[in-house]
């Protein structure tokens, strides 16, 4: 993406919507910067009643902007709905109020301390809330919010109980209104800048990956909970800072600031401005403050109805997508004008395998049987077992897979293939036995650790980050895998760009680099997965029914790609597949599983002529037909 021209040209956003967005941001910032002189001028012209009033309103909007943008770090970037954000705002406000009233320390010291206190409360309570996921996480934040509220209301000795703390005054240095405004603007502006850098950094990339697909994020090596806790704490910190600015415009801090319904404000503001963009909620803050000011005096309840209607409208018009819409307006336009059809979800097919077809298929697709070099053992399973209640899904499986092998696992439905894969990749813990990878014991380790060790996985149902571009899918996976997502600065989209582009070209997806991954065809999405596995530097790739849901043509293309990439990059493949033409066309070694155990192992030729294997499959065929009959 190198552009010729002046040295700064590479810093200009290249896409038109980006340019519009940047222009809008600059206009917004200028308008914010000019508010006090503009108000004073309008007052001198007699066009507004009181410049002071307008400036204080501006300060209120700035504080709200900080609060809402910090909320959107969770909502828009990480996909978390918290009902405790008002509580951290309240904690910040109370910290300042208490320090000022009881200890008479300087406001500026209190301002520095308050976000720290909020962050500490945030990390402790967030740790509890993040024991649960999604809905239950939201409900736990609700409980935490009410817990903090009850404390604020009940702890008379410290918080003044339901009277709150009154009579807080702004420090002498900030009594002049334009000074107050610019002070708050500086604090808010600096905070927004920090958060902005954060969202574009590799750290922000990890958050987006989590939002898009938790399971996938985990498998590329992201410790999902740790990132959620980090963003939760950072959001609490900035909410605390916003809360600490609050006493500059309001003399009282009361417990109802912490009540869970107060979270309506940042939610509405974020949705109003658009949660898909960074500055959206800040813009929303000014709109909201304006609306609130002009309506709340005469029509306070109509305002609630209006705000509710706005939230409802946004949620219903942009269903599902709005939470992660890269561009809310584009989403809306697509919705109204009509847009691309969403790709059809893959369904796993449980069809029986027909051995009859196999011979013909093998003849058609057979590759010359290469001599398998019995090299190093890369993956070794020892007595691996897993039972669910009484059912033994996998029972003492011993298996050795050599480096460079292309190893297929076949077997009728319920043979334990998927469970075996889950045990290897760490999505399930074995009841007994061991998994060794490259001489290292990885038994029962979490998925992200196993992914880092070098085992990639392609899933039965396609696992990509649907609303990130194809290129970002790869770049973010690389960032996560190479441990760079802890870095909270730098531009994630510029790191590993060339390397990712090269990989995309290798799998034939070069032309789609900037397309959202979810818009690609099913087969192409699998190719993205394969590229992600390559990007992760996996030495071994597990493919769980790689061609399920693909047409015959797609299947052929996909498997050609897999074979080519595996040969070029000396990858070890372990795959399970129902389609025998795929199995015999790709595998060098085949293991047959039946009822959780390894039945036999051999070259494709040996397996094909094994009477026991045929019996297993014929048995399954009969069973299938019996089941099919009554339905």
């Amino acid at each position, binding site marked *: 993406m190198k552009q010729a021209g002046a040295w700064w040209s590479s810093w200009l956003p290249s896409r038109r919507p980006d340019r519009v967005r940047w222009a809008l941001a600059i206009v917004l910032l200028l308008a914010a910067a000019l508010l006090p002189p503009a108000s004073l001028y309008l007052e001198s012209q007699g066009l507004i009643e009181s410049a002071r009033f307008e400036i204080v309103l501006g300060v209120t909007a700035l504080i709200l902007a900080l609060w809402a943008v910090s909320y959107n770090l969770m909502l828009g970037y990480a996909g978390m709905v918290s009902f405790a954000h008002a509580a951290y705002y309240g904690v910040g406000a109370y910290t300042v109020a208490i320090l000022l009233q009881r200890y008479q320390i300087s406001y500026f010291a209190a301002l520095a301390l308050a976000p720290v206190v909020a962050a500490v409360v945030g990390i402790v309570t967030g740790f509890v809330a993040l024991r649960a996921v999604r*809905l239950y996480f939201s409900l736990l934040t609700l*409980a935490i919010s009410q817990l903090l509220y*009850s404390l604020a209301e009940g702890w008379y000795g410290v918080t003044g109980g339901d009277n709150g703390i009154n009579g807080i005054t702004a420090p002498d240095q900030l009594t002049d209104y334009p000074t107050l405004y610019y002070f708050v603007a500086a604090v808010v502006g600096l905070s927004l800048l920090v958060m902005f850098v954060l969202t574009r950094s590799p750290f922000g990339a990890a958050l987006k990956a989590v939002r898009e697909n938790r399971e996938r994020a985990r498998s590329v090596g992201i410790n999902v909970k740790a990132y959620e806790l980090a963003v939760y704490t950072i959001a609490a910190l900035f909410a605390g800072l916003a809360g600490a600015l609050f006493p500059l415009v309001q003399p009282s801090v009361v417990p109802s600031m912490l009540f*869970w319904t107060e979270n*309506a404000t940042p939610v509405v503001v974020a949705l109003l401005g658009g949660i898909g963009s960074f500055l959206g909620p800040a813009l929303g803050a000014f709109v909201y403050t304006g609306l609130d000011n002009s309506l709340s005096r005469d029509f306070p*309840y109509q305002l*609630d*109805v209006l705000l509710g209607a706005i939230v409802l409208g946004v949620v219903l018009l942009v269903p599902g997508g709005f*939470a992660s819409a890269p561009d809310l307006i584009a989403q809306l336009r697509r919705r109204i004008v009509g847009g691309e059809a969403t790709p059809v979800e893959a369904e796993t097919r449980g069809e029986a395998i027909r051995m009859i077809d196999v011979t013909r298929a093998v003849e058609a697709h057979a590759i010359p049987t290469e001599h398998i070099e019995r090299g190093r053992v890369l993956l070794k399973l020892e007595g691996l077992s897993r039972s669910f209640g009484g059912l033994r899904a996998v029972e003492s499986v011993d298996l050795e897979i050599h480096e460079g092998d292309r190893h297929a696992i076949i077997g009728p439905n319920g043979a334990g293939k998927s469970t075996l894969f889950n045990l290897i990749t760490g999505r399930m813990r074995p009841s007994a036995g061991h998994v060794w990878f490259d001489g290292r014991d990885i038994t029962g380790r979490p998925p992200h650790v196993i992914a880092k060790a070098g085992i990639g996985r392609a899933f039965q149902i396609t696992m990509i980050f649907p609303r990130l571009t194809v290129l970002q899918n790869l770049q973010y996976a690389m960032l996560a895998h190479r441990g760079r997502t802890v870095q909270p600065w730098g531009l994630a989209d510029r790191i590993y760009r060339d390397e990712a582009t090269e990989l995309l070209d290798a799998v034939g997806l070069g032309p789609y680099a900037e397309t959202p991954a979810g818009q690609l065809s099913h087969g192409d999405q699998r190719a993205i997965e394969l590229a992600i596995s390559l990007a992760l530097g996996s030495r071994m790739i597990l493919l769980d029914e790689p061609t399920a849901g693909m047409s015959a043509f797609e299947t052929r293309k996909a498997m050609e790609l897999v074979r080519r990439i595996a040969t070029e990059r000396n990858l070890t493949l372990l795959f399970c597949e129902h389609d025998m033409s795929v199995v015999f066309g790709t595998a060098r070694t085949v293991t047959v599983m039946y009822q959780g155990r390894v039945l036999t192992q051999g070259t494709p030729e040996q397996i094909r002529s094994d009477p026991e294997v045929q019996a297993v499959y014929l048995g399954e065929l009969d069973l299938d037909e019996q089941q099919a009959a009554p339905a």
Partner: protein
Amino acid sequence: MDPGKFLLFATGGLADAAYLFIVAAGLSLVFGALRVINMAHGSLYMVAALVSVIVANQLGASIGFLPALLAAVLVAASIGAVIEVTVLKRVYGHEHLVQLLATYAIALIIGGAARLIFGPNYRTTAAPVQGSLSILGYSYSLYAFVTIVAAILIGAAMYGLLFRTRLGRNIRAAVSDPELLNASGVNVTLLYTTVFVIGAGLAGLGGVIVAPSQAVDPTIGDSVLVLAFAISVIGGLGSIIGSAVGALMVGEVISFGLINPTTNSFALAFVFIVMTVVLTVRPWGLFGRPEA
């Protein structure tokens, strides 16, 4: 502690548990069958409470209670039907995030509309059953017992509905195996509306029953919603028995939290500590099942 005082607080907790159970059971039923957390559940409770107070005061508390009850439950159920048909139908199967925000928006709308229509001030009404009785030296209002009996009857009626009727069988199927239900020829669209209307009606019923024993204003739904969440989460979302056990725990925790003057301002905090502990140890609640 003397037994009379203990009994007093235990009964107080039971009376709280009674109305909370009715509200939480509705919330839990809706979640179980529809997989939607209804943030507007408290608003329906609030609207019904307001309507019942107004109707009862118009007609006089002694004869007005039954018409008030009918009117209020009808209003809550009708609003519920409108919500289900116009909004919820569009968000089934979406992320929880979308559902939370959509129903939250409805709560905002109903809250604003209620203030607009009824005004922000609180209202009171007399209990339909007056009088009190004295046990071990402490005085009890008769209406508290009426509340408890009503909750037991409603619990029994729900049990009957769920386990003795065809509708109940379908609802249980929706809770345990929605896909099978789809395949079995039941009119799922209608079933979902019905379940949501029942849930809304239960929210309304809770509001009507609690109205004579407290001041009613358009904000009462906000705090009851959080308690109803606490209850259904403790008991396990989707489980009616769980709601009963959760309501008992919450009711008694609040009641006995008030007994000690040094802790009484934290009575509510205890509830959320219990909820946090339960969710941390058993995220799907005492009687719930882990979500797939």
